[in-house]
């Protein structure tokens, strides 16, 4: 059965791949052929390679607690963690509903990762009990539904670094346990098989580290040890997936005052590591072993909560010179080194705790 009668399949694919992501669930409900087509990995890779894909930014934000009543100011409830989807190209913000049952939002300080057409939410602090959460929630942009993945084997880990290779593996490293001991351990999650796989320990403990995926390796950036609380390491450690082992620690990579949260990987084909350097007032890229300044860091971007790479731009969430009431999105075009500021619409302001980019 042809995908579209009267059209060779490869051309039918061309047509289907040009349909916007909002229509995926519709396309998948037409017939068996179309459903199989849209669910195939080839569909997504064709969309990406022909530039038809849409890059969505998914954010976990701290939003006002809906249970908080404005008339009783004494009752200050902590903010809830909710997801939003931001499309920088159109400036459009939409809500992404939390998983069913998560009436108090998602676990606070959870980590996000994008794999294919799915968003994975892992870890964080349970919104009710404030205990470390081992839950794994997966949202499919194809079906518009949430599901649970297998919990993390060890529940006691928060503020870890997390990244995905975009295909099937999620990598978790470092963090700390309930006694605030920094962790050296790491784990990998196979999304297709829904199982957690052990990974050898890192060389040192890394609390609050950041994990990026570059060149077939999960690179763990910075973090601090139990004894040196808050003193971020300047080293990085890379885990090679092919050899399933860690490469030796690379010392003195980061600048003295750069936090791992100000670091972000380059895109496909760009093996650099980018960092916002407050001390230098610039944005720099690490290629090989040398840092090179690529743009200024405008005085406007005084405080940054999260940095993401989106297409060939860096998106910085933070607040401008007016302080916390002036939260905005700053976009740096890496080609032109120009910054643009975008306002955040009413209802979507809230500190960005985590974010990831989905290209679908």
């Amino acid at each position, binding site marked *: 059965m042809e995908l579209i009668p009267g059209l060779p399949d490869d*051309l039918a694919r061309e*047509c*289907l791949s040009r349909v916007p992501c909002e229509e995926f669930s519709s396309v998948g409900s*037409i017939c068996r052929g179309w459903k199989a087509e849209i669910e195939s990995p080839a569909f997504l890779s064709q969309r990406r390679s022909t530039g038809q894909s849409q890059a969505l930014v998914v954010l976990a934000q701290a939003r006002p607690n809906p249970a908080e009543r404005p008339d009783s100011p004494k009752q200050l409830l902590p903010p809830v963690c909710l997801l939003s989807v931001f499309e920088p190209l159109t400036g*459009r913000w*939409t809500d992404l509903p939390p998983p069913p049952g998560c009436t108090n939002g998602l676990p606070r300080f959870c980590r996000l990762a994008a794999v294919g057409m799915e968003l994975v939410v892992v870890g964080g602090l349970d919104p009710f009990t404030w205990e470390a959460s081992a839950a794994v929630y997966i949202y499919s942009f194809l079906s518009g539904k949430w599901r649970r993945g297998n919990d993390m084997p060890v529940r006691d880990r928060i503020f870890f670094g997390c990244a995905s290779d975009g295909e099937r593996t999620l990598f978790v490293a470092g963090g700390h346990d309930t006694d605030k001991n920094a962790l050296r351990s790491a784990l990998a999650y196979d999304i297709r098989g829904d199982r957690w796989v052990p990974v050898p320990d890192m060389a040192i403990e890394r609390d609050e580290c950041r994990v990026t995926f570059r060149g077939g390796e999960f690179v763990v950036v910075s973090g601090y040890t139990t004894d040196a609380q808050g003193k971020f390491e300047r080293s990085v450690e890379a885990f090679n997936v092919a050899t399933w082992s860690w490469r030796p620690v690379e010392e003195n990579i980061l600048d003295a005052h750069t936090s791992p949260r100000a670091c972000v990987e380059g895109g496909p084909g760009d093996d650099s590591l980018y960092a916002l350097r407050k001390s230098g007032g610039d944005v720099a890229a690490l290629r090989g072993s040398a840092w090179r300044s690529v743009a200024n860091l405008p005085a406007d971007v005084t405080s940054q909560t999260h940095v993401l790479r989106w297409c060939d731009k860096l998106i910085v969430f933070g607040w401008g010179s007016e302080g916390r009431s002036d939260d905005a999105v700053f976009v740096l075009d890496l080609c032109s080194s120009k910054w*643009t500021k*975008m306002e955040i619409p009413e209802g979507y302001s809230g500190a960005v705790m985590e974010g990831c980019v989905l290209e679908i």
Partner: protein
Amino acid sequence: MSEGIMAVVKPEMKSYIWLQTVDGSIQQVEEEVAMFCPMIYREVIQTGMGSSKNYAILLPQRVNPSILGSILDYCRFHQVQGRSNKERKTFDEKFIRMDTKRLCELTSAADSLQLKPLVDLTSCALARIIEGKTPEEIRETFHLPDDLTEEEKLEPLRNISDDPRIRLLNRLYARKRKELKEREKLKNAEVEEDRVDERSVDDLLSFINSRDGDAKGVKTSKGKKKNRRRKDQKDSSSTKDDETIQKELDTSPSTKRNGEINNILEANPSRSANAQDFSSGSFSPKLEPDDGFMDDDLDPAMKEELDREVEDFARRLNSGWPERMQEILSLGQEKKSISSAIVDNGSSRTCISLNQR
């Protein structure tokens, strides 16, 4: 001309290429038009075929005479150098207005002739058709079986595609997205850019009009439409650099309430109060076509709500951008027709309120 002899090309005569379609019929086509097709070009250059009736180039099986006619019309237009992007876009929009079956044939034929720009155009058109229809309509249009069980069907659209306005908004978003992508690429292109924008919304509207089979609607509201559109166009096309484009984007629909439009993302239950205020997507006057068009589809209650939305939005727009409004108003004064467009139309209230500020 006797058949056995190769045609002698005199300098003042046009040269022709001979083409043969699968049904056996042979025709001659102006050389520059035929050579626009890579497949024909290659045949001529590599094998020397096509210079006479006896040596006509045999076209692929997927190209029948009628489709060939369309393809050659396309080539005839586009092979002319010096046409502006706007002209080409206008032509393309009109060109692809045909039934789905013919569009499929055209895609197939263009592909066999390796005419990639036309394949892109037609596949986009087909994607737009898919985008605008409900699953039932899609099955009917493309003759597809309904062979999935209810469980297998993915999240069904929540009445969203039944509302023509939301479908329109989705289309406009997609179009805006594309336009912005293109604009980014052509950032330093010619001044014609401005006018490209104008035409694209123009044609989008009449395209949508004709697709919804409402030819009458086109005629009656055309006058009013043109003026609103021109005013809106000045808005979106007057800015070229990033910053102002971003500012423009920022005032895009109070997008919190666009939850419903994105039919994959459900509206957040804690925001349901807002969702209910508002039966469908909110609109940015910049993207929205003239209310005159909408009137044909809506009942008075919806229309009123729409008007309120637009007014509210316009007010917010005004308070933020006094300078921009001055610009728009001064343009509005130049185009006297805006005042004549204010007839017995819901949009008149909006026009007036904008002018008064």
